[in-house]
């Protein structure tokens, strides 16, 4: 909570009223997003200063009313009651004033100090409504400010109104007459007012709450006046309800809503002056096409394809231009770290570079995520996202998901390329708890960007001719698996979770603002970098340690050292009498070796003749004595001989270092774990090397390919790509395309990376679900991979046959389940009180 030196202002309003835009307008860039304690509802906070001091601003979640049924409504309510903001800005959609005022009435009954922000006046005008702001102010007795949030209109007026309202807190002027229920309301109010300690609470609102059986209101009373007294009042309210319902033949809740509605209707006849009816709005005309039964699916596919094309394909091309920057960063860090030794590098160097490499693999995706998040913000803000939910809900619902699961699945990478972290994060908006859990647990099955390199690698080795077909299988298979798994989970472990109906407003289309879209894109990318970055770096350290310890035994180290010495001796002998002997031997030897490797790497990366010339210049200035040894001048026979010997030595050094690294990994902790798992994983065809790669990929998916790269080291100068090397080694080891299929299937179903599981923890608020999100997919992946590999081996199937069989089997199963088996039944809602106690919000004033 902000310190209350200044004043505290809360923004309340219904969904799609433009509350967030107005919040941005009010506070500018000084804002941050946090969670309300204990729940996954975003709490946006910001502040601004006016002449009289600081104004702390909180953007409450959008709520249609203040009933205690949804998480957002409870959060908003408890904030208003617990924090008692100095002013509440009630954002009204001028084009939908009737509905908006229902919330205003409830806020006013809660005795909030209100300022009405009449937003979207332009939209109202366009749809033929003339809203008289002065009349509204006069009739409600509340200050009214006209704003057009997305054009930045009304900031000054709103700030002034907030400041002047903060000084005066009077009785709430807007009062609805509840007719035959008034007697009961006033009776309860009287009873409440006789209790000490309730002065702070809105008594009329509490009385109304009691008469509607509002469990949250009862809980509030219990806190303030004790269990007994609260029960007494509840009983008294119960009698009033019985009498009223017997006399009037209508439910108290309905009666209260109807009275409010009539009051608002009466008020609006004076406020809204003219109305053209019947002409369809732009939104309605657009929807006739976009939601047309036949056009809608095509349009949706086109949209998803465009997201994929622009963010993943073009974004990937963009990373070709940003990668040199990251490579430059690596070179720069490498220059700062202690120099490499002949055989063994100082730990600071190897760990430092390891960390930079880990960070770089992550940062490499930043351009893609910026584009992806911007596009998704565009779709959300325009109003199309809600339509996607409308189009797809039927299918998703059949498999236990929800129309609003679409966004998380797209973010997770439905086809290829996404990230489960923002995907799981985006499940926040799904109102149905069971579908939300199912979405959280299935998003990691999507093809995240980091799974793609491994697929590409395996396809390159084993399926050079069938790449396209296999990639099609892989990218669509994930969705098939996700739907099946979701269905499985919702009918088993998630069966008891609360469900809620799909009742949703389809908002008006509107043009998203550039700042709004960019802000969201940068916010989400920033969250990704912070959340994933810290975890990836921490885990990188752990994996580094697991790969390096306990290290080589002394005897083996001595053996390698002896071999290195012998190689150096041979080199020095060969150079005897050479003009460059002094420059190349003794203390100069190791720097020369590093100079040589650096030079070769730089030349390999240099583009064109111009690039080569620059590299030459750079290395000539770096060390003019060494330069002739890496690039012998024509005719200099001594230099040429030295260069040849140097090349032999460098090759020797490389191969020794490779052997050492492999030995180290074999004997490392991770290596032993990998070997220890072989008895289980051999059914899936995985040897310890693959196990190590898969284990380290739990830290971050990218590292699977990197680890495989280390394990399948190049023998010679590294001209062979990892694909060729791995192909040779595994084929020599009897591996087949079947093994590749087994790996692909395991990788597709394998548990989410560590960052994602942490996000699962955040979103489910439970370590049990986090553990489940690790154990279940591992078991499933291993089972599927083992079955495919074992059966495939037994019947002698080729890789492609096995893959096709799995794919079409899954598709058939999907169709059977989808069409024939009864969909998961809704779980009746438990009394809200029960759930609230579990997820109680701590900022309520306790008794």
């Amino acid at each position: 909570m902000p310190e209350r030196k200044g004043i505290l202002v809360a923004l309340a309003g219904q969904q799609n009223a433009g509350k967030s835009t107005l919040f941005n307008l009010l506070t500018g860039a000084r804002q941050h997003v946090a969670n309300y304690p204990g729940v996954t509802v975003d709490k946006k906070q910001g502040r601004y200063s006016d002449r009289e001091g600081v104004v702390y601003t909180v953007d409450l979640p959008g709520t249609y009313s203040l009933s205690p049924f949804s998480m957002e409504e409870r959060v908003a309510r408890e904030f208003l009651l617990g924090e008692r903001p100095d002013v509440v800005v009630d954002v009204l959609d001028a084009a939908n004033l009737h509905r908006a005022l229902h919330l205003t009435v409830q806020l006013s009954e809660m005795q909030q100090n209100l300022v009405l922000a009449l937003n979207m006046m332009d939209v109202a005008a366009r749809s033929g409504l003339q809203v008289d702001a002065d009349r509204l102010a006069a009739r409600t007795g509340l200050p009214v400010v006209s704003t057009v949030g997305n054009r930045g209109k009304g900031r000054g007026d709103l700030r002034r109104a907030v400041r002047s309202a903060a000084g005066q807190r009077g009785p709430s002027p807007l009062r609805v007459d509840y007719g035959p229920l008034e007697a009961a309301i006033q009776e309860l109010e009287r009873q409440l007012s006789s209790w000490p300690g309730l002065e702070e609470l809105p008594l009329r609102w509490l009385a109304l709450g009691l008469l509607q059986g509002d469990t949250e209101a009862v809980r509030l009373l219990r806190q303030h006046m004790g269990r007994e007294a609260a029960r007494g009042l509840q009983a008294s309210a119960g009698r009033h309800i019985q009498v009223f319902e017997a006399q009037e033949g209508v439910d108290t809740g309905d009666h209260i809503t109807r009275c409010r509605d009539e009051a608002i209707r009466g008020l609006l006849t004076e406020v809204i002056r003219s109305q053209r009816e019947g002409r369809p709005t732009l939104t309605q005309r657009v929807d006739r096409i976009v939601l047309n039964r036949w056009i809608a699916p095509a349009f949706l596919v086109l949209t998803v394809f465009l997201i994929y094309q622009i963010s993943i394909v073009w974004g990937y091309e963009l990373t070709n231009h940003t990668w040199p920057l990251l490579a430059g960063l690596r070179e720069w860090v490498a220059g700062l770290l202690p120099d490499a030794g002949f055989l063994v590098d100082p730990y600071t160097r190897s760990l430092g570079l390891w960390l930079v490499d880990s960070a770089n693999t992550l940062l490499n995706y930043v351009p893609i995520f910026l584009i992806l998040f911007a596009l998704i913000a565009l779709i959300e803000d325009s109003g199309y996202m809600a339509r996607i939910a409308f189009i797809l809900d039927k299918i998703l619902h059949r498999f236990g998901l929800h129309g609003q699961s679409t966004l998380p699945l797209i973010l997770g990478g439905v086809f290829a390329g996404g990230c489960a972290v923002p995907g799981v994060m985006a499940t926040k908006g799904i109102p149905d708890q069971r579908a939300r859990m199912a979405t959280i647990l299935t998003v990691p099955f999507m093809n995240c960007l980091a799974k793609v390199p491994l697929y590409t690698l395996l396809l390159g080795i084993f399926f050079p001719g069938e790449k396209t077909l296999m990639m099609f299988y892989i990218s669509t298979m994930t969705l098939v698996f996700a739907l099946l798994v979701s269905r499985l989970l919702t009918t088993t472990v998630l069966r008891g979770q609360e469900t809620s109906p799909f009742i949703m407003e389809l908002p008006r289309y509107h043009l998203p603002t550039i700042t709004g879209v960019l802000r969201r894109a940068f916010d989400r990318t920033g969250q990704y970098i912070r959340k994933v970055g810290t975890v990836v770096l921490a885990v990188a350290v752990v994996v580094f340690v697991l790969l390096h310890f306990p290290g080589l035994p002394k005897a083996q180290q001595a053996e390698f050292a002896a071999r290195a010495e012998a190689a150096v001796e041979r080199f020095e002998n060969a150079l005897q009498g050479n003009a460059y002997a002094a420059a190349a031997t003794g203390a100069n030897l190791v720097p020369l070796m590093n100079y040589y490797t650096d030079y070769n790497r730089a030349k390999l990366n240099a583009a064109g003749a111009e690039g080569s010339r620059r590299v030459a210049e750079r290395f000539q200035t770096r060390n003019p004595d060494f330069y002739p040894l890496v690039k012998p001048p024509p005719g200099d026979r001594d230099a040429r001989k030295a260069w040849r010997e140097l090349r032999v030595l460098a090759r020797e050094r490389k191969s020794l270092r490779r052997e050492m690294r492999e030995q180290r990994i074999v004997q490392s902790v991770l290596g032993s774990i990998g070997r220890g798992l072989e008895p289980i994983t051999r059914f899936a065809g995985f040897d310890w090397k693959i196990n190590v790669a898969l284990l380290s990929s739990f830290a971050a998916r990218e590292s699977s390919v990197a680890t495989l790269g280390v394990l399948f080291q190049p023998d010679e100068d590294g001209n062979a790509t990892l694909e060729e090397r791995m192909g040779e080694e595994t084929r020599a080891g009897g591996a087949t395309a079947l093994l590749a299929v087994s790996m692909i299937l395991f990788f597709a179903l394998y548990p989410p990376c560590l960052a994602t599981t942490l996000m699962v923890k955040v979103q489910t608020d439970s370590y049990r679900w986090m553990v489940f999100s690790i154990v279940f997919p591992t078991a499933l992946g291993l089972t599927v991979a083992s079955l495919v590999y074992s059966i495939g081996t037994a019947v002698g199937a080729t890789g492609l046959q096995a893959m096709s069989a799995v794919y079409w089997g899954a598709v058939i199963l999907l169709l059977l389940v989808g069409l024939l088996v009864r969909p998961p039944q809704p779980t009746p809602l438990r009394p809200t009180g029960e759930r609230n106690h579990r997820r109680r919000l701590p900022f309520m004033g306790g008794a």
Partner: protein
Amino acid sequence: MAPDTPASTPPTLNDLRPGRRARVRRHRAAGPVRQRLLDLGILPGTCIAMVRSAPLNDPVEIRVGAVSVTLRRHEARTIEVEADDA
């Protein structure tokens, strides 16, 4: 449920064809569903129009005042409607 429902079940929103209008008679749902419907302006006596159903027939889109609302047929079945005389 009221025992005095007529022999033929009263029409619900689910029976409304696209393009047709009707008046809300009463809600059969309780709890959060009822509250959400009320919050969205679907009060007894309100005039609503069926706009369209989704490509796979479910959910449906209805128009309430100036607002488009989508809901599943399962929930649409809980809203009893009557002919709109206005």
